[in-house]
């Protein structure tokens, strides 16, 4: 219900939302949780295992009870916490783990079976009969298990990523964080202040207390205004710092548009923030005291109970009881009483506690405990045990519990540090130096009073600025309350005759933890995995220390000896979509387009990927129903007249300097030093381990000037490699390398009529051997200065025309259209692959990183004089000799006419098993020129076996082909066609 005149949000603006299909109204400034409480929605969902009713327990990310699904971009996103969801108009929420309806749930039956469902029950219970696990039990459990239900459609919400750098990152904008930001900001430091709330103030937004002589939340508003005025301070509201990483790097989740209906703004933004210093001012999290039935809706943190009242004017019951082991909960009693809510009892576990002056006239029970809570879908009453041991029933419909406060220190442990136990406050605090450059202040540091938070925050901000060499003075510290603690630890109340819950999300009870200890899972990390404690969205923030205390008790150790489980990023759940940002669909990876890309598309090209490049695979023409028809036609076109091919993605590296020839001679296994100016040479490069790395064509442009044209896919690796050889191995040589790949468009013209086509663009036609095969010349084509390379990958007479990239599209279009008039046209990668295969030319399908020079028939290079990369290692045993598989050609000779790349080779008559394996098929295609499938393969002793038969066996696709071994050059072995 909403208390009239209470709360600090817009009372006049109503915001409609729906839950479980029913419409409700909240107010502007509400969270979904406060709006639910105001609408008397307390039974919000059901739990994971036992399907018990669950309700709201907390104010923020430590919410352990209520999880709902919220509709976003057409899908219900599971496991959202109402407390961290700001209300917006039209918000639709749905309960979780309840079927067919929240009030009538079939699996609530599990609760009755709970004696059978203790920790590890699935390991113990589903062992028989043998084989039933996969067929019966696992499908059954999979259907029942899971927290919420994942949407099965793609995540359509927009996300973004961003980077920021600053001097001081202040994490949390409560009293400590505000003072830290103020001190560092006034000193001139570049400050980022991040807080998950939409407003700054932290706990002050939820309290009735004075700071500096005025209401704490108003003081916070004034400081926020001052900070927002400073140009060197960036306030990041709605932002949770989710992880600490090396070198002062922090990840952050900004909920950019979570508070708005679905729209154009990104829903969330994932930040990487680099900060020289950081202040941990994340406050503290109130912990429970476990007792029988403590999971009922309307049982919540005492601090949350008063927080909902003070900030939102919402309270979860009409007859409220408080159960605590410390002084802080008294404020809850006071605020409720002031607001006119009946407080039926203040149950204090401490025998020596005195009735608080601010508690009003409510009944005060020192040395008493709540032994059990009653009610099914919500609290109806309590059984208490008084100091004298007497049991009594108290009628109450709401209970606030406080077991003390745990510093929210998780970020301080993300680099591997363990927290330090402080017995005086019975809590873990961040260890000093846990994260380099990070200092904890205020409640995050175990200093819980407001006065201490303000003072520690100011000092932390000042020292962070000073550490950066800035002159920083301490800001005036406003007067505030200095009361804190008085805690006497109590972790759980034994007895009560029903389950006492520690983890409300995963249904882990006190007795589960005791059982884990009995069964040998006494280490905290073992206990966690055995019981699933702390594995829900709250990650044990709420009751983690309680669970450790119960485990410590059961194993006869102290809490610090038991130790915490490991805190890892993220502090708060981050969706995968947010981490991915805009990197999906077309934004997943950059695309590289050749200058003629759009023209190729306009001619209907079907595009494929070659690394990041988009390359035309084939150019379909009218009447062609599939790629093979287009490919066969393009192959015939090149062999019969002329084809035009966009080779622009090739690597093009200019190598310059007095030692350029020497450098290439060292880089390539193929000798390059003697290459004459104006000539070109195909060569291979080895890795230092003696295997073939890549191939390429080198053209000598001048005395100290070469051009290396490399494979598209290998260009990036080659660039790194060449630079490594130059900078790391031969720094004394006079060599410069320039990556000119994107400066030049390069178009292949090939076929018996290639020269005619090129000549049609020239004022003075070329003679047949001008330039000769594997030579180049500079000339002017259609008025543009160009390089004309005479080379061929197809086996036909071939030219490659290189022009500055800006002329690439025009040249490709011109050549394509003229070729078409001659009965030719553009061709794509598929046809090129068939053409090169017919000629036995190699690609990365053959040069796959495992191949040596002898394998491809180039042993003679190993005898070359002088050193080159890979030479020494290439002569190792195992890289040459009879056991090596050698390059051969294959053609089918039996009934099966198909050969599949990846098939393995066996002698006919021998079993197709590993020990008989003699090699593999590297690539295969149908050759329209030869009317047969042809393949390149590596076969043991293959060069001496031409004419013999071998079996190509593909075990995956179940294709067996009897093949004849032949020379890898299938077409025009003498190379007569090259000369046109």
């Amino acid at each position: 219900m909403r208390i009239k005149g209470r709360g600090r949000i817009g009372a006049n603006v109503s915001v409609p939302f729906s839950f479980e299909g029913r419409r409700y109204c909240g107010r502007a400034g509400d969270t979904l949780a406060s709006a639910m409480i105001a609408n008397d929605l307390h039974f919000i969902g059901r739990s994971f295992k036992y399907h018990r009713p669950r309700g709201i327990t907390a104010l923020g990310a430590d919410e352990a009870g209520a999880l709902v699904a919220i509709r976003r971009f057409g899908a219900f996103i599971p496991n959202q916490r109402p407390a961290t969801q700001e209300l917006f108009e039209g918000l639709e929420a749905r309960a979780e783990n309840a079927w067919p309806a929240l009030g009538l749930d079939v699996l609530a039956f599990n609760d009755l079976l709970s004696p059978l469902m203790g920790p590890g029950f699935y390991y113990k219970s589903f062992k028989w009969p043998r084989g039933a696990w996969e067929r019966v039990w696992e499908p059954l459990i999979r259907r029942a298990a899971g927290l919420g239900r994942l949407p099965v459609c793609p995540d359509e919400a927009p996300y973004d990523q961003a980077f920021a750098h600053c001097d001081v990152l202040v994490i949390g904008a409560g009293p400590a964080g505000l003072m830290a930001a103020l001190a560092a900001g006034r000193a001139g430091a570049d400050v980022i202040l991040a807080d998950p709330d939409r407003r700054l103030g932290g706990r002050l937004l939820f309290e009735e207390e004075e700071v500096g002589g005025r209401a704490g939340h108003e003081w916070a508003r004034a400081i926020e205004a001052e900070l927002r005025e400073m140009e060197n301070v960036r306030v990041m509201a709605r932002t949770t710092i989710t992880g600490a990483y090396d070198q002062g790097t922090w990840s952050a989740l900004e909920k950019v548009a979570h508070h708005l209906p679905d729209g154009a703004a990104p829903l969330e933004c994932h930040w990487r923030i680099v900060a020289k210093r950081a202040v941990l001012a994340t406050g503290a999290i109130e912990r429970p005291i476990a007792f029988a039935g403590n999971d009922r809706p309307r049982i919540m943190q005492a601090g949350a109970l008063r927080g909902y009242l003070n900030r939102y004017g919402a309270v979860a019951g009409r007859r409220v009881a408080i159960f605590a082991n410390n002084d802080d909960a008294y404020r809850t009693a006071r605020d409720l009483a002031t607001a006119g809510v009946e407080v039926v009892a203040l149950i204090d576990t401490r025998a020596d506690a005195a009735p608080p002056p601010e508690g009003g006239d409510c009944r005060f029970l020192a040395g008493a405990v709540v032994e059990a809570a009653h009610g099914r879908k919500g609290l109806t009453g309590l059984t208490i045990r008084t100091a004298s041991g007497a049991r009594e029933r108290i009628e109450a419909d709401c209970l606030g519990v406080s077991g003390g406060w745990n510093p929210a220190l998780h970020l301080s442990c993300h680099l591997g540090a363990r927290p330090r136990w402080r017995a005086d406050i019975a809590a873990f605090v961040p260890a000093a130096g846990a994260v380099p450059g990070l200092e904890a202040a205020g409640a995050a540091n175990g200093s819980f009073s407001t006065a201490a938070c303000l003072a520690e925050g100011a000092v932390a901000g000042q020292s962070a600025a000073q550490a950066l060499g800035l002159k920083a003075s301490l800001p005036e510290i406003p007067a505030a309350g200095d009361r804190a603690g008085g805690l006497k630890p109590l972790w759980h109340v034994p007895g009560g005759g029903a389950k006492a819950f520690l983890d409300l999300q995963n249904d882990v009870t006190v007795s589960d933890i005791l059982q884990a200890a009995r069964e040998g899972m006494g280490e905290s990390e073992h206990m966690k995995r055995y019981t699933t404690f702390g594995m829900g969205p709250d990650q044990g923030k709420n009751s983690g220390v309680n669970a450790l205390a119960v485990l410590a008790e059961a194993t006869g150790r102290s809490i610090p000896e038991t130790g915490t489980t490991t805190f890892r990023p993220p502090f708060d759940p981050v969706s995968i979509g947010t981490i991915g940002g805009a990197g999906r669909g077309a934004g997943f990876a950059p695309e590289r387009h050749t200058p003629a890309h759009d023209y190729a598309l306009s001619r209907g090209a079907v595009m494929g990927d070659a690394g990041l490049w988009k390359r035309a695979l084939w150019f379909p023409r009218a009447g062609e129903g599939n790629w093979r028809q287009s490919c066969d036609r393009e192959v015939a076109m090149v062999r019969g007249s002329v084809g035009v091919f966009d080779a622009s993605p090739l690597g093009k590296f200019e190598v310059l300097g007095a030692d350029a020839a020497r450098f290439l001679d060292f880089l390539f296994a193929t000798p390059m030093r003697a290459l004459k100016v104006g000539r070109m040479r195909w060569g291979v490069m080895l890795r230092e381990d003696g295997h073939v790395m890549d191939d390429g064509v080198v053209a000598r442009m001048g005395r100290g000037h070469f051009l290396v044209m490399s494979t598209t896919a290998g260009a990036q690796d080659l660039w790194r490699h060449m630079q490594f050889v130059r900078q790391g191995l031969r720094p004394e040589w006079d060599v410069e390398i320039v990556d000119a790949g994107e400066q030049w468009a390069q178009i292949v013209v090939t076929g018996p009529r290639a020269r005619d086509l090129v000549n049609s663009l020239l004022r003075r036609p070329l003679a047949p051997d001008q330039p000769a095969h594997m030579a180049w010349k500079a000339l002017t084509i259609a008025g543009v200065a160009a390089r004309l390379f005479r080379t061929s990958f197809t086996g036909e007479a071939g030219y490659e025309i290189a022009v500055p990239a800006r002329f690439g599209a025009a040249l490709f279009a011109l050549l394509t259209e003229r070729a078409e008039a001659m009965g030719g046209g553009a061709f794509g990668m598929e046809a090129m692959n068939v053409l090169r295969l017919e000629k036995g030319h190699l690609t990365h399908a053959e040069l796959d990183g495992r191949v040596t020079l002898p394998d491809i028939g180039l042993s003679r290079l190993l005898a070359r004089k002088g050193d080159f990369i890979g030479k020494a290692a290439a002569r190792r045993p195992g890289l040459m000799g009879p056991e090596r598989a050698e390059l051969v050609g294959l053609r089918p000779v039996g009934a099966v006419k198909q050969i599949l790349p990846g098939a393995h080779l066996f002698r006919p008559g021998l079993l197709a098993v590993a020990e008989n394996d003699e090699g593999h098929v590297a690539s295969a295609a149908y050759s329209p020129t030869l009317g047969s499938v042809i393949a390149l393969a590596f076969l043991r002793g293959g060069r001496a076996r031409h004419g013999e038969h071998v079996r190509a066996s593909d075990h995956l696709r179940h294709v067996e082909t009897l093949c004849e071994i032949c020379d890898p050059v299938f077409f025009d072995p003498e190379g007569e066609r090259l000369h046109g």
Partner: protein
Amino acid sequence: MRIRCPLCGERDSREFHVMGAAEWLARPAPDAGLEAWDAYLHLRDNPAGPTRELWFHEAGCGAWLVVARDTVSHAVFEAVVAWEAGA
């Protein structure tokens, strides 16, 4: 992770390509023998602590660097250009 490139200043590790241990700079003589070549190609320490690695500032100046860093603390101590570093 960020590396202070001696030519460009402190840059994000995503601008760099890592190759491996700085020993790649100590290429043996061609006739050093199989054992020396085997060591150069294959044998690497796997230190828990300070190590020296080759990083290429690919999306920056294009310099190969020798980066001294700690595999345990992840601290990056120093980066020098490969041609001045030696193995």
